[in-house]
């Protein structure tokens, strides 16, 4: 071992200094990895769009361990990366520790609020977007039974479910909503097999449209729904293309826009609390060539009308996280 250490020491002397100072922005993905076809991938797409349009470069890292959350934040900050964007609520604790040590660096955290002068906290009104796809689900359903499959059972996902249920009830007050969560741990974000089983169980209870708000688990939900001949609704990214003609729509949560904006604002970024809702295009439903035949003009008009009302404040959708309860759905 001593020999080994000598050898290592010798190479250390020759070594490059890592992390030459750059003003490039940086993006940190959560443990789920960047190609999850959903949340992290949306963040990546936003960063890529920024790189393509400006010709800039950005740093990125997919984490391997919990200890790396703080490590990645500090390393990027020390190397001069600015702003640093992190995708996911799990960074809140680490960012709360780190932000004060680097007052000149701007941070953006998505899906969570961290109260510090150099942090922008981006949260989405997922309940509003979910309300719209809930309306569409109720209009498309023939059995008057629709399903919801969540990922990990956390308040954020209940917020999705509650908005969805309100949309369904707004169209058809007698409709039945079957809601299931995949699990109680982060593993629930990436369990397509369980997603598939839950979909089958919901179909046996009569559901003919299912909405998956479950990250990578949703891939299994959409697949099973397509195989069994019922409609499904995707989440976060536009997932209509995954099963053309069998995905009713996708609830778009424009994480990509949040990342793109943060990167574009650069070091002059305005910090504070930023809500992305229907009013500013932060959420919405996806309409493209893959689902054009599934969404008749009457459905589109009704949903667009509701969307305008929500955006203008005329129609209020209850936010589960405001009081930890949902008037139309029990968990």
């Amino acid at each position, binding site marked *: 071992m001593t020999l080994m250490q000598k050898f290592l020491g010798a*190479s*250390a002397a020759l070594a490059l200094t890592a*992390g030459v100072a750059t003003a490039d922005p940086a993006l940190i993905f959560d443990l789920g990895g960047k190609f999850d076809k959903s949340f992290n991938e949306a963040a990546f797409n936003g960063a890529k769009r920024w790189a393509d349009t400006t010709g800039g470069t950005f740093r990125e890292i997919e984490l391997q361990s919990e*200890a790396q959350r703080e490590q990645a934040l500090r390393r990027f900050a020390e190397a001069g990366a600015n702003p640093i964007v992190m995708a996911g609520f799990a960074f809140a*604790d680490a960012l709360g520790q780190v932000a004060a040590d680097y007052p000149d660096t701007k941070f953006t955290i998505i899906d969570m609020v961290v109260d510090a002068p150099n942090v922008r906290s981006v949260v989405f009104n997922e309940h509003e977007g979910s309300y719209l796809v809930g309306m569409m689900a109720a209009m498309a359903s023939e059995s008057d039974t629709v399903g919801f499959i969540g990922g990990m059972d956390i308040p954020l996902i209940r917020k999705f479910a509650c908005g969805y249920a309100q949309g369904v009830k707004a169209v058809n007050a007698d409709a039945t909503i079957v809601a299931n969560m995949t699990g*109680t*741990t982060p593993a629930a974000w990436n369990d397509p097999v369980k997603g598939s089983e839950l979909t089958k169980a919901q179909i046996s209870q009569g559901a003919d449209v299912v909405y998956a708000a479950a990250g990578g688990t949703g891939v299994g939900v959409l697949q099973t729904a397509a195989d069994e001949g019922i409609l499904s609704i995707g989440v976060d990214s536009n997932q209509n293309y995954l099963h053309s003609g069998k995905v009713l729509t996708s609830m778009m949560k424009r994480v990509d826009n949040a990342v793109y904006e943060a990167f574009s604002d650069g070091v002059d970024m305005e910090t504070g609390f930023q809500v992305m809702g229907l009013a500013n295009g932060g959420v919405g439903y996806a309409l493209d060539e893959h689902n054009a035949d599934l969404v008749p003009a009457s459905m589109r008009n009704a949903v667009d009308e509701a969307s305008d009302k929500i955006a203008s404040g005329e129609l209020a959708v209850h936010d589960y996280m405001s009081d930890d309860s949902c008037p139309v759905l029990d968990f």
Partner: protein
Amino acid sequence: MDVMPKWAEVTLVPLISLLLAAILSALVILAIGEDPVAAVKLMVSGALGSTYGWGYTLYYATNFMFTGLAVAVAIHAGLFNIGGEGQAMLGGLGVALVCLFIPWPHWTIAVLAAVVGSALFGALWAAIPAYLQAKRGSHIVITTIMFNFIAAAVLNYTLVNVLRPAGSMDPATERFPEAVHLPSLHELLAPFGIAFSKAAPANVSLVIAVIACVLVWLLIWRTPLGLEIRSYGKSQRAARYAGIGAVRITMIAMLISGGLAGMMAINNVMGEAERLVLNAVEGAGFIGIAVALMGRSHPVGVFLAAILFGFLYQGGAELALWTSIPRELIVVIQALVILFTGALDNMVRMPLERIFLALRASRSPKSTAAE
């Protein structure tokens, strides 16, 4: 008696294994179009080139020392404890309960209580497989593996349903109070005028790990109990004939092993995160197996192997930060080192033994091998 001299056994075998792993890793890096020399330089400078790098390397190494010692003690008793992962998870639960529910005036007292709490929980988790092995002959490898899954489920349940603060989305406990904050190496070394990186998570647990190494050495080679453990490990029948109780030794060895694995939580839960998160252990229990095998179950070997693996972890993180080498490939590189040092030990050992045999045969029979 031994085919190889001692120095060759402890230096040549691991070094050649490492070299082979390094060559294969270089080929892998070449295959994806990156420069292996630059990658090695980046790993070395990132993990050992600054007090910051050392801070992370030693942090990971502290984890691996505890789990490596745990596996090593069990191996001396002829038991293969694969449950370090689960025992460390439960140890984390012990530390969290100690830190959250008792108001400690100072970290020095809290850390002693945390040592007891984590070791107790880890040992309890090892006790059931040990009892099943000793009394019922249920194979310890199978039961300890199974207990890893049960530990994950237990931790899951307690974090989600009991310890999670209201309204939080993360399945994690709240932050431990400020009073139980363990001093980091930065804080420990500052009074001596040594400037150690403030950001790195290495903390006073490193000292506890080194003390544990010494105590394990004393236990195994300098106490009657250690002699009993080793004789039971070498030959169960002979040990039984000598009046050494199989049930007693199995239970004691596994309790010590589980306790050591549980104590890892002082470092990662109390020292680094200062709260209990769901995946706090992150495979350190399994790395401990490789560390113990590479360190030949000797505390000094475990210490050095743990630092090597700490280097691999921290160097790997640096690669992920500054190159486009995907993280899956970094896992491949780490796995190659584990494969060569742990699993393919005989591939290096047998040719080496043949060389030494040939050397010995060529010498005159009268001169004994000069070392």
